[in-house]
């Protein structure tokens, strides 16, 4: 109890929830460490990142690469079903080969992880950067600016970003590097929530004494933004960023599944799942491997995000139970791409 109280009275804790401007990093880390599921998720994420970074190494260890066709390993009589059980898994091809082409599944999966993780991370960075800038502009600008920005924010949040992302893929020159394009498209279409959160925080922070003091002391508006407000935004923005990651992983997989993501022969999980639709009966292993990997990745990021949220703001749940939390705005829930 006494511990909870100290946490509750951490210096600078803002009334609406974000951990304060200078929240104790050790304390946050200690709380995160005490959360067993968050630590497990962190371990999974670390493993995924390592595997993706070491993709060439993993492939070399297996002695395979993601693009070579192995026609001898598929049965041409059945249209290309891998020969042997579990998708043709063997000592040479540890997780089997791709139906139709005979390409190595393990190599494609680990190289696919590179795309998945780099695109989702890049997209999150773009979202956060745009969201913070636009949110700051809305919160610190005049009334007209705030109204215009807030309205476009509503629109960006409500608009099904997948629709626009798919449509945009039709008009970008084919020479543009696809992973970068995916990052930009997912990022540019997804800044709305971050901007809304930042704007709300800025409006509250603006009225706090230490910010007024800086203003009265003669600091210019953007100096106040940079020196006083920006540091205080770290906690909510980090929380939101980590929660956004799994959605971006799913978004990239969805776009690749729809055939507008990275171009073959670059492997991606969504693409593998999309081609797997033709091999349900003949080669279930080929469906299950990328499916499980995608699910585990998204779940690990989600659990980690929840853990970070709780660690940065441990009182949110009890506040909710006590009914002090403000009624959430309707669109605070995150969009689920259908």
């Amino acid at each position: 109890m006494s511990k909870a109280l100290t946490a509750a009275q951490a210096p600078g804790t803002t009334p609406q929830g974000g951990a304060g401007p200078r929240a104790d990093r050790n304390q946050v880390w200690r709380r995160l460490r005490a959360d067993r599921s968050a630590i497990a998720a962190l371990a999974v994420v670390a493993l995924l990142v390592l595997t993706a970074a070491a993709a060439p190494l993993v492939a070399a260890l297996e002695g395979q690469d993601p693009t070579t066709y192995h026609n001898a390993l598929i049965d041409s009589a059945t249209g290309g079903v891998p020969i042997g059980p579990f998708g043709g898994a063997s000592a040479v091809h540890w997780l089997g080969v791709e139906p139709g082409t005979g390409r190595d599944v393990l190599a494609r999966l680990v190289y696919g992880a590179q795309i998945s993780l780099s695109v989702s991370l890049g997209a999150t960075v773009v979202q956060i950067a745009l969201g913070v800038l636009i949110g700051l502009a809305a919160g610190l600008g005049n009334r007209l600016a705030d109204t215009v920005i807030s309205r476009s924010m509503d629109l960006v949040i409500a608009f099904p970003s997948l629709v626009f992302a798919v449509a945009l893929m039709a008009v970008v020159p084919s020479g543009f590097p696809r992973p970068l394009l995916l990052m930009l498209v997912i990022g540019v279409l997804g800044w709305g929530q971050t901007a809304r959160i930042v704007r709300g925080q800025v409006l509250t922070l603006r009225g706090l004494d230490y910010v007024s003091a800086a203003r009265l002391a003669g600091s210019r508006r953007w100096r106040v933004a940079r020196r006083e407000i920006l540091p205080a935004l770290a906690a909510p923005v980090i929380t939101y960023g980590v929660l956004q990651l799994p959605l971006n992983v799913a978004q990239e997989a969805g776009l690749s599944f729809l055939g507008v993501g990275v171009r073959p022969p670059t492997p991606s999980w969504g693409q593998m799942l999309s081609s797997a639709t033709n091999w349900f009966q003949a080669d279930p292993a080929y469906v299950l491997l990328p499916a499980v990997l995608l699910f585990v990745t998204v779940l690990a990021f989600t659990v980690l995000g929840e853990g970070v949220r709780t660690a940065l703001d441990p009182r949110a749940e009890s506040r909710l139970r006590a009914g002090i939390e403000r009624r959430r705005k309707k669109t605070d829930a995150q969009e689920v791409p259908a």
Partner: protein
Amino acid sequence: MIRFLLRRTVSTAAVLLVMSAVVYLVFYAAPHDPAVLVCGKGCDGTRLAVVRHKLGTDLPVWEQYGNFLRGLVAGRTFDSGNDVTRCAAPCLGYSFQTDQPVLQMITQRIPVDLSLTLGAMVIWLLLGVGTGLLSALRRGRLVERALTTLTLAGMATPVFLVGLLVLMLFCASLQWMPFPTYTAFTDDPAQWAANLVLPWFSLALVISAAYARMTRSSLLETLAEDHIRTNRAYGLSERRIVLGHALRGALVPVLTMLAIDVGQILGGAMLTESVFGFDGLGRLLVTSVNQIDLPVVVGATLFAGFFVVIANAAADLLYALADPRVSLA
């Protein structure tokens, strides 16, 4: 009330106008020349100029956009001298690749998304609100922990993954049912429902997770309000308090969330349609993107946006109607 509706209509129209201009500009800036795509391979200079003139893409962009807007009200005629194509009002554009008005291509596919959305909606509401209600009532118990975990997993699963797995399980492995193909309700209602069961559940399972969370947190907020404390003081049972008094208020944010989700999915459930091979608005967009059929891309995007903007207005209206604390002014 009337003032609210009027104001909302005007602002909705303004938003739609801005959106259409943005969408139109983005696609005009595209490096693809629609005339080249329509004209096909081996098209020479003069023929290309004729096609370009017919499509109206030889005009400056604002005139093209003006023609597009005028077409919505008055219809359009694409005329190259000897070859005339009429597109009756309201003309959302004309796809020369498929030789159909865009609006017709869209309206043909609306029943698919309507069927998908309405059925899934019933399931995700029951599932989501039920789960949220249960975890709010059993807070602190094992049931709540289990439900929270399940909800997190549900939020983490992309819909096409669920779709693929149910297809693999029920249609390929167990063979309990054939692979779904869309059948129109007017043709055979029983077949319509049978074919939609899997898509409905896949979509609902994924979406309901957000509803479970929202219901739970909203119910917990409501339970802390003063009028509930009064009820407690009168000695009402927890069950009666929740079901009779708290739930109604707690569902207000769920209602607005519902309006927005329905608006989004009506505009095209690309992933669900693609997994199950249903020819709805989402697939129309994906196909036209792959074939670079720009008029259809613009039309389908605008149509999806149209549903979303309407849904947002509906959400605000519902919010105000359901919660007396919110004024309509």
